[in-house]
């Protein structure tokens, strides 16, 4: 791809100190994100898939600079934003927004929807009272809520409507990139499709880029251009959505795809059931972190960590697995 990516992440690490013992010494680190590389083009959706505890939410929060990464580099439109602080960070806060899983927890229950939606403008000192009010009405219309919603409180809305409010807040300042952290997983099936349609529509209208974090692969496949699979703090595979589903290479991706229950009773199940649980990121296995659960484990997997490398015979598909390096 030719254009400058809107986001580039190089070798990003987020290690949280683990305090233990009576003196609360930090001996160990929770390596929630451990050397991730990715890029997102303007107007593109990168789906980020993984199981709970794999570090996908932490990665999203590093990119939006809610966390200060331990190491690595985050470039937004070519500018390094990894370490900047305070006032310097302000314009990026405007350009990178977030949508969370549970809108009840991410919306202040004591503020009216109007107040919630005006706040971004007040913080960033944009417009006066009248123009803000007008913009709030516009935002509500864009996300499909009646204008009178502005005087109501979040608890008066259903889960799907609250997620619409969360989306309205995220797009208020015309951001370029939105980190969507499990935005539909708390919603009922018939509401999920409404919100997915809205997100896709907004992307096309405002040329938004999304980092779409989720564990539901069918949802991710639907909304994403490219997909990255994460396991224990590292990406194990990435590529175009269709490629990942038709032609997954990493044994973890393969088992993840085979584990999705398909809503068709005629579908023949060829399931690769993984043994055991996801290991702790505090004490990850040596070599390839997936090796204790991998059905195709080889000797070198136990000692050497495979790197995420482009596949020789496939354009734009990267995989971190020794099966494909020889």
């Amino acid at each position: 791809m030719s254009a400058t990516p809107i986001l580039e992440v190089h070798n990003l690490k987020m290690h949280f100190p683990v305090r233990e013992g009576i003196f609360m010494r930090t001996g160990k680190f929770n390596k929630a994100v451990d050397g991730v590389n990715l890029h997102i083009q303007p107007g593109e959706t990168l789906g980020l898939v993984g199981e709970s505890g794999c570090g996908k939410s932490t990665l999203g929060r590093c990119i939006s600079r809610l966390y200060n990464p331990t190491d690595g580099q985050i470039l937004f439109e070519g500018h390094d934003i990894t370490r900047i602080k305070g006032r310097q960070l302000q314009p990026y806060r405007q350009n990178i927004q977030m949508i969370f899983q549970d809108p009840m927890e991410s919306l202040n229950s004591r503020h009216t929807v109007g107040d919630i939606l005006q706040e971004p403008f007040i913080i960033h000192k944009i417009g006066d009272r009248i123009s803000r009010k007008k913009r709030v009405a516009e935002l509500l219309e864009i996300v499909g809520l009646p204008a009178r919603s502005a005087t109501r409180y979040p608890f008066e809305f259903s889960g799907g409507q609250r997620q619409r409010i969360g989306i309205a807040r995220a797009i208020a300042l015309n951001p370029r990139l939105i980190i969507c952290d499990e935005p539909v997983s708390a919603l009922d099936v018939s509401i999920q499709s409404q919100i997915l349609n809205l997100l896709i529509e907004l992307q096309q209208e405002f040329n938004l880029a999304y980092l779409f974090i989720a564990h539901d692969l069918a949802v991710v496949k639907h909304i994403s251009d490219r997909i990255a699979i994460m396991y224990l703090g590292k990406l194990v595979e990435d590529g175009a959505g269709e490629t990942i589903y038709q032609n997954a290479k990493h044994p973890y991706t393969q088992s993840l795809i085979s584990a999705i229950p398909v809503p068709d009773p005629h579908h023949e199940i060829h399931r690769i059931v993984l043994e055991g649980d996801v290991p702790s990121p505090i004490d990850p296995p040596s070599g390839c972190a997936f090796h204790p659960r991998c059905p195709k484990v080889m000797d070198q997997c136990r000692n050497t960590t495979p790197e995420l490398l482009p596949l020789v015979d496939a354009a734009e598909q990267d995989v971190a697995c020794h099966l494909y390096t020889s």
Partner: protein
Amino acid sequence: MSETLLSVHNLVTEFDTDEGRVRAVDDVSFDLAPGETLGIVGESGCGKSVTALSIMRLLPQPAGHIVSGQVLLHGEDLTQAPLKRMEKVRGNSIGMVFQEPMTALNPVHTVGRQLAEVLLLHKEISKDEATRQAVEMLDKVGIPAPDLRLGEYPHQLSGGMRQRVVIAMALACKPSILIADEPTTALDVTIQAQILELIKELQNDMGMAVILITHDLGVIAETSNSVVVMYAGRVAEQGNVYDIFDRPTHPYTRGLLASIPRLETVPKSELPIIEGMVPGLLDLPAGCRFENRCPHRQDVCAQSIPAMEPIDDAHAVSCFRWQELKAAVDQNR
């Protein structure tokens, strides 16, 4: 169907709330055959969990009431059974698994003690024998080093392992029915696959029937022989799994099946949606519960509730216009 193990007839369950009485389950009927898996599917608030709690007589007290209807287990009406009798039924005849294994387990007792408690309560056996059977059960549900795990507390186990323990408890007395209420919703997909596989294995092994309650149509398609689709407390449609997925007739079932993103749908294409949202139980439409969201609504739908009408053997639907809708679908086939 040859014989019936459990038969629910016109079950009606209501709750007292601050704002008045609400009907959470309204006229629900279904039969469960030995060894069969029955899926109950629906969105939050549709009454699927309350149906299960009514069968087990575990409704929150004093708010929940079974107002009318019957739950026949081998012909015995459980809605009229004395509480002492119900204590025997729970665990012995019907085991239950809940969504969140952490809340189903007691955090201050070891896994072994909780498992042994179930066995001691229902069987006339010694403590040593109970411990021996507890180890056997843990082994059966695929927990490695079961004799060591016996001494551990629930917080020391992962989510998947906890759910295995809960399943072991539910099945300890070899019930003929297992009710599983969203047993895999809190789990990751790879762990979900393990648990569904486990339930299937145990079912083949022990010959029990399963009532599986879930919102996930994929899980239903994969595991169930027959399906009950619920909406706002009532059954919208029921039938065998092929009736529901190949020949969905109720507009709600059809809307639901059309709206889920699938691996083969074109990325970023507009998904068909069901307009609006599920009505609250306090302000249900007077007629068909789905009336205010239905693309095929007519005047009659707002006035009275459609009866459950049989389409063929097992397939039945509650919609005034099912014949027209079915004809249109058949023509497009």
